[in-house]
């Protein structure tokens, strides 16, 4: 197994990638070595790194022999331009990170403006159900892991030069494929671990807290945000599920049952460790 590390700071890269994982989850992880350092954001364009931060991650990755991997979220037109500017500036400085896209516009951007960068399809490309309440009666999960659900999508991704598909543990499985070639070049398979996203959006309550009464939420969709979520995620309790929930900025994450998550491991070549839930 190979590992990616999605750290919130580039300063502390552990020698054993499993050390970055929340302790409750480490026992599930097989031995392996880190190959990639993830940074950026999958869920909130306001948390896209600036050039200084991105360069720091790229430098830390180079120093440790890891592939720098920039995650990108669904984006507005301005967010698309920001990614273009960032990738252009990084290239000018000699950095050529892999890019995880979650927006088809970002894939188009990579095709047209940054064709040399390796690209990976992120977890929002996979729109399978992840409702945490579904585990109440099926703690092992119900995923069939039937790769035929995504045959055409995988072929499309190959045509666009995509190297790998990434997801978290959903309720259905199959997005990562079966490791075969489906009649074409095999796609790498990465599992984000251990947090699954439940829901995300632009109406961020933490951002709304920066506004006076009557402001924030829909009225601030396009306003840039200083990202008050950069501290720690908030623990969230729900009466309808016992699974641990976390609010990380504009996104709700949860920790699926270990049993259900374990069933995903044979379908992955890479595990992307998240020390904490982050958008």
């Amino acid at each position, binding site marked *: 197994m190979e590992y990616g590390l999605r750290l919130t700071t580039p300063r502390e890269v552990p020698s054993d990638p499993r050390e970055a994982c929340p302790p409750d989850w480490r026992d599930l992880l097989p031995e392996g070595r880190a190959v990639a350092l993830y940074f950026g954001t999958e869920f909130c364009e306001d948390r896209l790194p600036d050039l200084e931060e991105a360069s720091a991650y790229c430098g830390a990755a180079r120093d440790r022999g890891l592939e720098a991997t920039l995650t990108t979220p669904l984006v507005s037109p301005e967010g698309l331009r920001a990614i273009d500017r960032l990738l252009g500036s990084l290239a000018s400085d000699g950095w050529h990170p892999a890019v995880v896209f979650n927006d088809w516009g*970002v894939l188009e951007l990579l095709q047209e403006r940054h064709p040399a960068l390796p690209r990976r399809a992120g977890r929002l490309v996979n729109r399978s159900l992840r409702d945490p309440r579904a585990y109440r009666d099926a703690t092992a999960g119900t995923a069939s892991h039937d790769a*035929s*659900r995504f045959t055409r999508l995988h072929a499309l991704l190959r045509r666009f030069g995509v190297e790998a598909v990434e997801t978290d543990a959903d309720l259905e499985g199959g997005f990562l494929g079966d490791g075969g070639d489906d009649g074409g070049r095999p796609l790498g398979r990465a599992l984000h671990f251990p947090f699954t*996203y439940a829901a995300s959006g632009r109406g961020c309550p933490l951002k709304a*807290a920066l*506004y006076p009464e009557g402001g924030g939420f829909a009225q601030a969709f396009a306003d840039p945000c200083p990202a008050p979520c950069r501290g720690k995620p908030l623990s969230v309790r729900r009466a309808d599920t016992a699974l641990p929930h976390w609010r990380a900025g504009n996104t709700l994450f949860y920790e699926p049952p270990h049993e259900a998550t374990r069933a995903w491991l044979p379908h992955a070549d890479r595990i992307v460790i998240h020390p904490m839930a982050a958008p």
Partner: protein
Amino acid sequence: MKILAPIKSADEVRPLAEAGAGEFYCGVTPPGWEAAFGQAAVHRRSARSAGVSGLGELRRIVALAGAAPVFATLNAPSYPAGAIPRLVEFGRALVEESGIAALIVAELELVLALGDAGLAGRVHVSSLATCRNPGAASFYRTLGVSRVILPRHMTLAEIEQTAIPGLEWEAFLLNDGCAFEEGTCSTTHAFRPYCIDDQVGHSQGRLDERYAFWKWTLNNCGCQTSRGYTLGPCGLCALARLERAGVESLKVVGREAPLARKLGSVRLASLALRLAEGGATRETIRDAVVAERGAPELCESAHLCYYPDVWADSLPKPRQGQAPSTRRAPGHPPAAPAASARRVVPIRVDTPAPQPPARNGPC
């Protein structure tokens, strides 16, 4: 621009058309679906409460609609193994035999499969596909689809940049908001809407109240009506800008709603559209809508706006000292509660409002 009305039975066609609907959309389930795929959803809404009862009823709808096109939803965010071939054949039958003008599709695997079957030109990409920028629009255009439905959570300025030529564009106009981006909400209403029970976090106090208020407006102010009109998210004041952006179709949400609610929504949309086509200002449209619907309080602070940036010059700005130019805030304590006094928006409704219910689906 045309008003796109939700529909679930043939009885609704004529009154909705007379009220101003120029297009219709509905949900219909393939015969034998439940036996093959159990509770897996065909649509984003409940087939039982929001769907057309069967193919015979669907054909009556199409016949009564006449020149007005009828679209069918196959817009679940994902489908179980084996469902795609079944849905492609069903989609083909809807188009070729039942007179459906286009299929509203969210899942990309199904979009691609319909394309392989020669039906790409009859596909409308659902708002669940979250096409939010011109690059994504270009991607869908290369797939040969005919229309893209913009997601709810976009500003007018973003729509103006995203609505590229070579596609038809549809935007939300009235009713039923979502707290999350619908395309990135990976939960199901089958358990009850996930957002209803969502709270910000421990001890957030006033912020939770503000969040709850926002969700309440999205939920049509607790499913209330005023003079028969739904008090839900509304984009009527933005019609002129939507038209200039190239939006051709204006979506009224609520397939499962009673006919009276659908009629009220289409009438209100029709009134505003006539004004917009006559060159009315946003203020003129707002005043006319409020005069007809009531509940002016909800418009005073843009609480119901699908596109609040139509009033950008009057929206609240971030509190001083927390300006967006502060790029980083490492270790910032998350979500400091607002300090100002509790605020409510009492609504004067002319029709007795139902109590805000604990409900299992949209109003």
